[in-house]
């Protein structure tokens, strides 16, 4: 029996064991995920003249390090802004709204639209010729600047923060909130001392997702940022598609991924992720 209620022919049933089902998924991951990453490591090494790690020596030059630093900085900034906005929105949907399903639908709806199109929309909204900019007389310096990148990333990743936070808020026993109030706590104090600590798992989960996605962002800096807002994904893309420097692209990718993993591990040593996310 694989799926209850659905008859499965005998010859299939014998072949479809849980082991073979697992093998299918694992096989896919091995071919299209693990093997490519191993290729990446292989490519980042230089087997010609000039030393095995010469690609890494080039990657560790100032210009790339600044870009790497900027990527993590933008990622962190996006995470903070997204979490703050996402928490307020999730709180409203979870506790204050009478139309939860509808609002959750609205939150998820933008995920149906490609990032390119959404960034294009923001561009059009902030172009000098847009009615809004004409009306206000300024775009507040958002377009083609760091602000533009952060605005773009925040709008795009907001659902990834709202959903886990909403879920965490919904799983708080409402009696605990009532208990806090009857014990003499104001609404604000209840949010700080009861609701926030008990929804931390959602904040952490959303934060990690947004941080990883935002740090590796490629489109937002390309479409909404200025010349000095380039992020690491842009540099990697340029080095293999424009200068065909596979060695540099691979070593940058390896460095970026390693730093990201190290950051997560450091974070994990402060906040036990297994424990926090286990609550979700």
């Amino acid at each position, binding site marked *: 029996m694989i799926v209850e209620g659905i008859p499965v022919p005998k010859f299939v049933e014998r072949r479809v064991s849980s082991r073979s089902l697992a093998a299918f998924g694992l096989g896919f991951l091995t071919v299209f995920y693990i093997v490519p990453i191993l290729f990446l490591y292989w490519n980042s090494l230089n087997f010609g003249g000039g030393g095995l790690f010469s690609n890494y020596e080039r990657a560790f030059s100032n210009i790339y390090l600044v870009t790497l630093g900027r990527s993590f900085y933008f990622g962190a900034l996006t995470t903070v802004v997204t979490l703050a906005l996402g928490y307020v929105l999730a709180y409203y949907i979870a506790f204050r709204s009478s139309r939860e399903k509808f609002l959750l639908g609205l939150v998820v709806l933008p995920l149906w639209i490609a990032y390119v199109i959404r960034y294009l929309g923001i561009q059009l909204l902030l172009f000098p010729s847009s009615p809004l900019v004409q009306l206000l007389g300024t775009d507040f310096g958002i377009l083609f600047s760091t602000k533009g990148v952060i605005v773009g990333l925040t709008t795009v990743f907001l659902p990834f923060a709202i959903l886990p936070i909403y879920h965490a808020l919904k799983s708080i026993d409402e009696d*605990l909130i*009532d*208990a806090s*109030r*009857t*014990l*003499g706590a104001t*609404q604000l104090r209840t949010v700080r001392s009861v609701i926030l*600590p*008990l929804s931390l798992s959602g904040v952490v989960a959303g934060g990690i997702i947004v941080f990883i996605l935002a740090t590796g962002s490629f489109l937002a800096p390309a479409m909404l940022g200025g010349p000095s807002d380039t992020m690491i994904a842009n540099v990697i893309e340029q080095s293999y598609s424009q200068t065909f420097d596979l060695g540099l692209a691979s070593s940058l990718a390896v460095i970026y991924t390693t730093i990201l993993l190290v950051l997560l591990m450091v974070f994990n040593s402060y906040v036990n992720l297994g424990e926090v996310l286990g609550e979700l």
Partner: protein
Amino acid sequence: MLEVENLTKFYGDLRAVNDLSFRIEEGEFGTLLGPSGCGKSTTLRTIAGLVDPTEGGIYLRGDDVTGQAPNERNIGLVFQDSATFPHMTVEENIEYGLKMSGFDPDEREKQITKYLDLVQISEYRDHRPTELSGGQERRVSIARALAYEPDILLLDEPLTGLDRVLRQDLRNEIKQIQREVEVTTLYVTHDQEEALSMSDKILVLNNGEKQQEGTPTEIYDDPSNRFVANFVGKSTRLPGTVASHDPPQIDTPIGTVPTDTASLDGFDPGSDVEVFLRPEDLSLADAGDGVLRGSVTNVEYLGTYSEVLIDAGEGIQAVLHTSTSADVDIGDEVALTFDPSNVIVLEA
């Protein structure tokens, strides 16, 4: 002292509480007793400030608190499922209310120690509530609700979900603690045994309306209507009509039931009534005697007594509590007698 005046609560079109008024004196243990959906929890939550009344007023120690937020009222609420904060230790749970009420650190320490002692969980002070048993968790929530010395302690079915022995232990302890702390208390339950054993005063509610208010004895021995008589305690029930006042008698399908003059007060001869006989007021007699006769359909041994069910004919089932040494078996033909002064007569 708690006063509830003409409290009415609508949820949309549904009337949960209807024009309810009552008063719990300083230090008194009051209970709201009724089946689920009778409005008892809504009433309690309105007193706590968690639900806004549609109409009516709530007064705590003489102050009108009707429009106040829960944190502005000095109340202690014990929830059905404890509602202890899982991210705080037992100590922090209790300290929370003390902090909010403005106790300084020294006083907090004193109160925490005192109330942990009172509910006998001092050894779990540094534990998380999630590490405790259900009974211990209830104790934490009781200590938490009492530590800052509220004007009134509200308990919302706090023994739900605990096993029988633990329920009984905690029941006695809550009563003991209440007497010791002398806190005005309002207890909500659907369990008549809890209500009868703990309360100074019971309010029986049904469909959001007060059915009767009185001491446990008054409620049990002198129910004011059929709902109360049925809800509190078991009875043998006989439909009937008042035959005469002198001698006081009631005609029932299985014969004429003798009663006393007082029980027929307010009933004219010929009016429809329902007769209630409590199981402990019935006793076994020799076959041939008594109005109630029939064959035993079930004998349930309950340790200190046995509950005997008798098919008295005409669809009437008699229930009797007898000593466990009594010699009755299923199928025996028996007769039952009772003291006419114990007959409860209520409007049909």
